[in-house]
């Protein structure tokens, strides 16, 4: 379809105007100067408003905290990425009261099993955005995209030291522009819909529950 390309571009070029670009003032999206406590409080407030659950594991051994939560919620297992930093720590400290399942194959090799799984998937995060109440996930070889999508429960580990005020701030600090992964995600709650009479319902296609585990480390 090179003809279509040429035709479209030439039509656009025919009337392109040479004008100075309008000024863009990004000030409104810069850091708000919130304290660490305020950042966490705002994040929780935004995320809890859309049914996100929090587990504060600061000052504790988080794998144990996660394991206890899974037992308490009677969830049948936890899928994780075995090659990530999180994965290494998790597997070394797991007491197997709840089955720990490594995501170590291509999705196609266990798609039916994955879609039928009724437990949780755990991922790391690259931080969070207080203003919008969003977690930042860089998916990739260590943590596949379906890990935070297909299991009915998504557990996300968040180092509270990595919460920032605004999206713009995170994007610049982490130099996203040079580091875009295959799939970068902002996740701000469990899956939801309001398509039936504007009534909110959770867990339509993605996870029905989202648990954020707060830690002091990665």
């Amino acid at each position, binding site marked *: 379809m090179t003809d279509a390309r040429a035709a*479209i571009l030439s039509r656009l070029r025919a*009337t392109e105007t040479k004008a100075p670009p309008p000024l863009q003032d*990004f000030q409104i999206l810069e850091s708000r100067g919130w304290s660490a406590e305020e950042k966490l409080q705002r994040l929780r407030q935004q995320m809890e408003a859309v049914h996100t659950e929090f587990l504060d594991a600061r000052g504790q051994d988080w794998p144990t905290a996660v394991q206890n939560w899974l037992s308490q919620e009677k969830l049948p297992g936890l899928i994780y990425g075995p090659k990530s930093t999180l994965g290494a720590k998790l597997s070394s400290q797991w007491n197997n009261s709840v089955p720990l399942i490594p995501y170590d194959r291509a999705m196609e090799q266990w798609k039916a099993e994955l879609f039928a799984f009724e437990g949780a998937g755990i991922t790391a995060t690259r931080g969070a955005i207080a203003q919008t109440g969003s977690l930042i996930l860089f998916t990739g070889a260590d943590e596949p995209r379906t890990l935070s999508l297909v299991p009915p429960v998504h557990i996300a580990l968040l180092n509270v030291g990595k919460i920032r005020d605004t*999206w713009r701030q995170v994007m610049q600090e982490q130099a996203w522009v040079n580091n875009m992964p295959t799939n970068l995600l902002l996740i701000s709650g469990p899956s939801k819909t309001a*398509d039936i009479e*504007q009534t909110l319902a959770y867990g339509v296609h993605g996870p029905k529950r989202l648990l954020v585990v707060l830690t002091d480390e990665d």
Partner: protein
Amino acid sequence: MDTADFQDSARTALGDPQLRSNFRRAMDGLMAKRAAMFPDRDEWTRLRSLGAAVRARSLLNLPHLLEKLEERLTANGIHVHWAETVDQGNAIFKEILAQHDAKHVVKGKSMVSEEMHLNHALEEVGIEIIEADLGEYIIQLDHETPSHIIMPAIHKNKEQIARLFSQKIKDAAYTEDVDHLTGMARQVLRKKFANADAGVSGVNVAVAETGTLVLVENEGNGRMCTTVPKLHIAVMGIEKVVERLEEVPPILQLLTRSATGQPITTYVNMISSPRKADEKDGPEEIHLVLLDNGRSRVYSDPELRNTLRCIRCGACMNHCPVYTRVGGHAYPGVYPGPIGKILTPQILGLDVAGDLPHGSSLCNACVEVCPVEIPIAALLVRLRREAVGNGAKALKSAIPPKGAGQHRSRVESWVWWGWALAYRVPWIYRLTGLMLSRFGGLMPATIPLLKEWTSVRSKPRFASRTLHEMASSQEVPND
């Protein structure tokens, strides 16, 4: 639907109390939620002017940005296709799907795909295409089209949806419980995601500098469609590109707050590459179809070009007194409400959809809430003039809008000519005023123009004395 007469369908919709109450309730809710998101007027003003500047800048450099986007996407391993028309776009889809022998397709919500009637085109060649957004799924089950660009099934209430599900979904019991209804759709669609050969999605913003496709959604169906099947085909209008990644946050924050009153959607999905060698999931192939369908013609006029700033938030329809009363199905074309009234006539042509720009009271509510400052009311007036103007000679640009001048009528042109003359020549003005005040009451209600006016209103009564006469009798100085 495309050639339906707006006036007729609006009249029918006005007579449907169920429809009117469904829309009234929904629009009231959406307006309140949006208002709660912009409590600080100063912040709204500043964020909005940034959003407008981002979109204006994108349009200014559009051809360059499209080339840059293509170059970056290609470098990232994403295939780019260009379609001038809807038919070309559908042909590209069919060809890619045929190459992969894909027979089962899942689709995330995309208004551009509605513009293409993609589902119909693929069903014709024996491909099953399932809408995965809950609202879209509901209307697909009922063989309907979206009545709102963000909330496609907003015209239905839960009783109607409950009845539909119990009839159309296998083994489904009748229930009006929203969680249960949602759960039913989840069950059906999970199987579809797992077994689909290909996923189709729209694009909310494409970033030229990084070669990234950005999608926002709440349900997770968009992520499913773009993650689980081996093949992902995205489709977008050529105007949706921005140059820099930093331009994404203002656009999306305006979009989600304006659309549904959320600080952000549950998922912001930024796709920059197909599955890499060491990765365990994600599509192995990604294609992007860039659709023109009249947009480059809209672009050619410096004023009408502003139509292309639109980020499809739907705030204009949520706040529109006309849309709220007639609903989305009354509008021809796929985009209802104020944005549809300026976009559809330019895409389908003023000859086909020329009555749309008249379906507005010019109350300006849409202009006040538009997050990218599209001068909708001014564009409505411009299109009204183009429809009755001297088609070949557009008012301001070399290339007139499609179908310009097709609604030109002798009577109307003559009336406006006379109107202009009366205002130019004082004695004609005075004479006309005098005649109307003395004999205007004798005009029968059946004469042209007056007949239209009096079909739904009472005949105007002329004052017995003109303003001039009254002014001079009260000795108002004439300067």
